[in-house]
């Protein structure tokens, strides 16, 4: 049972666990092409693709679910634009950019890509990114667009939830030259005001839907970070989550500055190894892995290393959720952030009886690789909560 099935389940439940089952129907009614991605899942995968998106690109739902958005990029896609999007994700902010994407059949087309983060109301954490993709037509008709003025007006003000805004109707605009296959792909296409407004409208409708349905689960979301990040367990910025999500080894990050050194991050491989779910481990100290056969001397050694801010490698008997035990080759190391001071401890586990490293690396090297990757990711984190923003 690999971490793939853990991941698949997370992808499937990403929207419904937060917004209830009904959100899928509501999203299906929206005509615009858009994607929703989940940065907390390893690989930052797509968890929803609208009918409009699938029609525009020629993909089937199953072909994009769980994949990363880079699959729509191709050889002529401007790399700087790709970086713009990557940085907007890392900095948890909105971006609107014209970019060349590729359909399933390999043909390139220009789109206006408008992405924005969705924040959890209670902790300010980024839960999803919504990315609307409006095709850019070469010849923009000046009179083909019908605007639903009432909708626009309402969106500018505080929206009252009870008002049933039928957002699907505003999208009856004429798609001028939607089939842009005739475009000289290499020429950069600039999005016009129509496309920008269309994108912004679409985003609003999606956000409204998500907000509405999030109230059903009692875990509300909003389009702007409300309240302070980090109540209870320190929530990691999604940029760190995304970096950590690329690391395949089993590991956890613990916070030495909070009482009892709780786990603040657990990799999918850790969950697979131990049988616990993420909710069951976050906020707890690692000692739940110990049991009757765990050598007390080893635990003392670990404690001593941590007190001395040193790294250590030990072997001890640990226990999974189902009670079964495994010999754990455990490596613990302090991890510093941009301030140069220790921000976390990383604990990398390896089941000594499993023979699943087949890439030629020794177990020790495989573990240290995870330590290094964590150190690189955390190194750029500033001490203040949230991602480091240069000019804010």
């Amino acid at each position, binding site marked *: 049972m690999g971490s793939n099935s853990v991941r698949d389940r997370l992808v499937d439940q990403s929207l419904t666990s937060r917004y209830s089952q009904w959100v899928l129907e509501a999203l299906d009614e929206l005509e615009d092409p858009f994607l929703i991605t989940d940065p907390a899942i390893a690989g930052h995968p797509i968890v929803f693709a609208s009918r409009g998106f699938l029609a525009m690109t020629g993909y089937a739902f199953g072909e994009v679910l769980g994949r990363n958005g880079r699959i729509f990029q191709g050889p002529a896609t401007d790399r700087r*634009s790709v970086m713009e999007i990557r940085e907007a994700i890392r900095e948890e902010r909105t971006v609107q950019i014209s970019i060349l994407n590729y359909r399933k059949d390999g043909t390139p087309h220009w789109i206006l890509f*408008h992405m924005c983060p969705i924040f959890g109301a209670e902790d300010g954490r980024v839960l999803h990114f919504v990315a609307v993709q409006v095709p850019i037509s070469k010849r923009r008709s000046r009179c083909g667009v019908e605007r639903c003025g009432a909708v626009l007006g309402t969106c*500018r003000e505080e929206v009252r939830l009870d008002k049933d805004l039928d957002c699907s109707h505003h999208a009856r605009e004429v798609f001028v030259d939607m089939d842009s296959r005739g475009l000289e792909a290499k020429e950069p296409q600039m999005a016009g005001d129509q496309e920008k407004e269309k994108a*912004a409208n679409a985003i609003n409708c999606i*956000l409204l839907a998500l907000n509405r349905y999030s109230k059903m689960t009692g875990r509300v979301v*909003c389009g702007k970070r409300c309240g302070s990040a980090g109540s209870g367990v320190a929530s990691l910025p999604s940029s760190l989550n995304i970096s950590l999500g690329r690391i395949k080894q089993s590991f956890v990050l613990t916070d030495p500055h909070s009482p009892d050194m709780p786990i603040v991050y657990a990799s999918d491989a850790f969950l697979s190894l131990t049988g616990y779910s993420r909710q069951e481990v976050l906020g707890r100290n690692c000692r739940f892995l110990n049991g009757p056969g765990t050598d007390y001397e080893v635990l003392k050694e670990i404690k001593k290393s941590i007190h001395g801010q040193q790294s250590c490698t030990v072997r001890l008997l640990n226990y999974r959720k189902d009670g079964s035990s495994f010999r754990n080759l455990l490596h613990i190391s302090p991890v510093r952030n941009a301030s*140069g001071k220790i921000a976390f401890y990383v604990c990398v586990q390896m089941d000594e009886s499993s023979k699943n490293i087949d890439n*030629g690396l020794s177990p*020790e090297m495989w573990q240290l690789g995870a330590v*290094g990757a964590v150190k690189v990711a955390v190194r750029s984190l500033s001490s203040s909560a949230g991602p480091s923003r240069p000019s804010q």
Partner: protein
Amino acid sequence: MLTIKRVPTVVSNYQEDAGEPLGCGRNCLGKCCLPVSKLPLYAYVADAEKEPSSDFLLNSLLLGQWEERMGRGLFRYDVTACETKVIPGDSGFVAQLNEGRHLKKRPTEFRVDRVLQPFDPAKFNFTKIGQEEVLFRFEAGRGDKAYFSESSSLDRNISPNVVAINVSPIEYGHVLLIPRVLDCLPQRIDAQSFLLALNFAAETANPYFRLGYNSLGAFATINHLHFQAYYLSVPFPVEKAQTQNIPLVEDAAKSSVRVSKLINYPVRGLVFEGGNSLKDLGDVVANACICLQDNNIPFNVLISDSGRRIFLFPQCYAEKQALHEVSQELLDTQVNPAVWEIGGHMVLKRKKDYEEASEDYAWRLLAEVSLSEERFEEVNAYIFEATGLVETEVDKKKDAKESGASYESTMAPHFPEGCLVLQ
């Protein structure tokens, strides 16, 4: 002969006693020891349809080995204990306070007026480093899948490419890629070595792992062919800078390489991307570098975006410094603008400089590095001729309007996000 005095950076623990005749049995990388040694080997697939490898094997290998050397105490300091910050401002220059990077020893003379100089075996070079500083070999494999072998003997007839640690790291994971170490190539670009560097970047498939090259006269201190590389999880300012596409006539080789120039950045430079293959892109840039070398123009190269975006900076700072044309205030900060500094990552030695580091300082320093507009255009003309690329005869007006700006800034979208706060 133009020279400047510099305290050289120590990249190897064997650098300082390089003058002593050291016999074999020292396990070095010379012809005495290397051919009978075994080293870990990472074999990449050459010129494949580059799909980013999803298992990040090379990253794990490089980082794991690096961390292991840290545990062995091979580095002169723990770079992660050095404070670092993004300087406020639009560019996002990155500054680091590192008081331990440079030796407090006598400065050495470096000749800065010749980009091509013959290899001198008496000077320090990478055959003199100990094998413990080598992490692994990086070679083209024959199969259709990349693989790693923990211990592999060397072929008699092949001079291995090695990846070694930089014992004075700028950042975590700072390594040196040394192509064909036994061939003792001087610091100069050739197409084969450049392609190796591109493959290295592509194989890590990590946008935060960059490679850099400094020519002699552009702050390379060791005249033995090498590229540097390290991880930094934020964008380099140069990567964020706007660019203006240079429209090209479809060139004879139809390589599909796109070229643009940096605008609104203190250092003038060219950006290369695209190409039908890594080799196509590599060959164009290598030819550009060779042209600069042949014309004695010092330059730096930054390989970014996993080998998909390459920056080329012809520069003239060392010459200015030798001619005493650089202000003392800038010289006092002792920042030598090599590729990383030009990219926007600066290591500062004095606390005062770090605390006062501003975007203005960074800009002023880097502006000194840049060629003038006039000279840059001249140099571009050489480069275009050497690479066989031809600029189209377009209206300069039309050019300016459609300036590669597929980027539209929207920090303030049309509909304020605030309208969706429903609490």
